[in-house]
């Protein structure tokens, strides 16, 4: 963005063009939101209405009432699973990325490669072996299974992103701490992690979002609907009530509440995560 600032008529044209593109791109979300507030009858009207003529909030109310349409429980499950996976990923990835950025230990390159390769793994490769493993560990059909599995997505991503943050911290900072009598561990915890905090936040966000979006693990490793995450709940509901679009769209909106909140408050972290994570690898 180092080009000269555009002003006058060109600026107005570009602004209008960009807003039109944005509206087109985000139309699916707008349409889902609008539909979730319509009655089933209105959804089937031709021509379609562009805003709910009769406001229907039943699809949302039903989600916290008892019965088939209750999604609140699944939402809570998703929250627990994603938070768990995020914690594991951050706790393990922060020291690991520091090691890669700062030390030339035995096997460093091989491990770095290992983290890179796991990012490219298709879930299908891991599903059956993990399924067998979790059954043997007696954690099949508990939250633990998707938590442990989801963390394997967050860890490599976080390591690869954070190593760039740690590498950009001047070595002098660390050396000063040693001179003042800090051990390696103290210097790491008290000096380096606080400086790398923006990077740690990026990792936490992405690890959470990856887990939040997961369907395969949650659906395969948990059998009971009451313990399953919201994505599996939605998928299940789609199978049972395929055309109840007023409920389905309302579920979709509820499922993206955390995503939206994270986006609103942490947009800059997300963009930095997307660019650092992928380009530098």
């Amino acid at each position, binding site marked *: 963005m180092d080009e000269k600032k555009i002003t006058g008529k060109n600026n107005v044209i570009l602004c209008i*063009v960009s807003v039109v593109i944005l509206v087109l791109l985000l139309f699916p979300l707008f349409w889902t939101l609008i539909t979730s507030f319509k009655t089933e009858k209105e959804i089937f009207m031709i021509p379609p209405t562009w805003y709910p003529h009769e406001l229907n909030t039943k699809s949302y109310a039903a989600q916290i009432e008892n019965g088939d349409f209750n999604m609140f429980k699944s939402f809570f499950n998703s929250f627990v699973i994603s938070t768990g996976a995020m914690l594991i990923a951050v706790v393990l990835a922060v020291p690991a990325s520091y090691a890669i950025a700062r030390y030339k230990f035995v096997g460093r390159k091989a491990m770095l490669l290992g983290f890179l390769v796991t990012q490219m793994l298709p879930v299908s490769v891991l599903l059956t072996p993990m399924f067998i493993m979790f059954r043997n560990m007696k954690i099949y059909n508990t939250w633990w299974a998707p938590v442990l599995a989801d963390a394997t997505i967050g860890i490599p991503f976080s390591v690869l992103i954070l190593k760039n943050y740690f590498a950009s911290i001047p070595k002098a900072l660390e050396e000063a701490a040693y001179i003042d009598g800090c051990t390696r561990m103290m210097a790491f915890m008290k000096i380096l992690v606080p400086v790398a905090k923006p990077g740690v936040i990026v990792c936490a966000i992405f690890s959470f979002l990856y887990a939040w979006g997961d369907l395969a693990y949650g659906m395969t490793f948990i059998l009971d609907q009451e313990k399953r995450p919201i994505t599996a709940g939605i998928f299940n509901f789609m199978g049972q009530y395929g055309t109840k679009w007023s409920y389905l769209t309302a579920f979709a909106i509820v499922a993206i509440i955390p995503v939206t909140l994270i986006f609103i408050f942490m947009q800059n972290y997300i963009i930095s995560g997307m660019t650092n994570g992928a380009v530098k690898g």
Partner: protein
Amino acid sequence: MKKVKEFFRYENAGLLFILPAFLYMLIFVGYPILSNLVLSFQDVSVKNLVHGKKHFVGFANYLQIFGDEVFRKAMGNTLKFTIYCLIFQFLIGFLLALLFNKNFTFAKTVRGLTMIPWMMPMTVTALMFKFMFSTDVGIINYILKCLHLIQNNVEWLTTPRTAMIAVVAANVWIGIPFNTILLATGLTTIPQELYESASVDGANSWQQLIKITLPLLRPTIESVLVLGFIYTFKVYDLVYVMTEGGPVNSTHLLSTYSYKLSFDLFQYSKGSTVANVLFLILFLVGLLYLKITMQGEED
């Protein structure tokens, strides 16, 4: 003991920091990869999945799936799906990146907001597109009718030919932000002076794009395409939720077919075999990606 302490003294102290994460990945990713490989050479069904003897059958599973019509179909679909997605998401992403690289008032804000689709849970995206592509209530049919492009409602998701279009459209929607942001970042690294001296020399914008932007952006374009290939080739949830591979296997990808074999038909070994083929292809492409990125990553 003293020797151990000595070993971890200097550079190898890093091992202490990395080992927890590394062991975790070894247990929960490394071991499953190996165990999946073993599974593909065994005959495993519901009966002997957790307990019981698993017989080795050599390459029988591989021979079987290569003779399997659905597998070959899924392989073709996966390639088709990936290539269509790559073309559209790259072209649109590139145009958007060029747009957002201009310094107008809304550039940053709008660029940020276009990232939203990328963050959506795939299940939700699948639901939204399934709704928009549905036959009677679908907004897409309505719009196409208004534009007089179609006479009658198209049964997008229940016709083999059109179901693929619908899943590609949904995946392109997810992929655009990814392409836009990476290409836009790449564009910012091109020195502005190059364009200035080019326009002094009388080069028009098209010539500048061909002679300056594209050649200098080549490393970014390469990694965007290879990464895009990897991410698209293994897409699973999106297609599984939208079509479950149907109608008549017309949207089955290697990933969805593998899932179906393992967890719907309980033919775990065949499912693992399909997954292994998928993995092998990704691995080869992954090597290409490493070759591209590792060049500047020697430290």
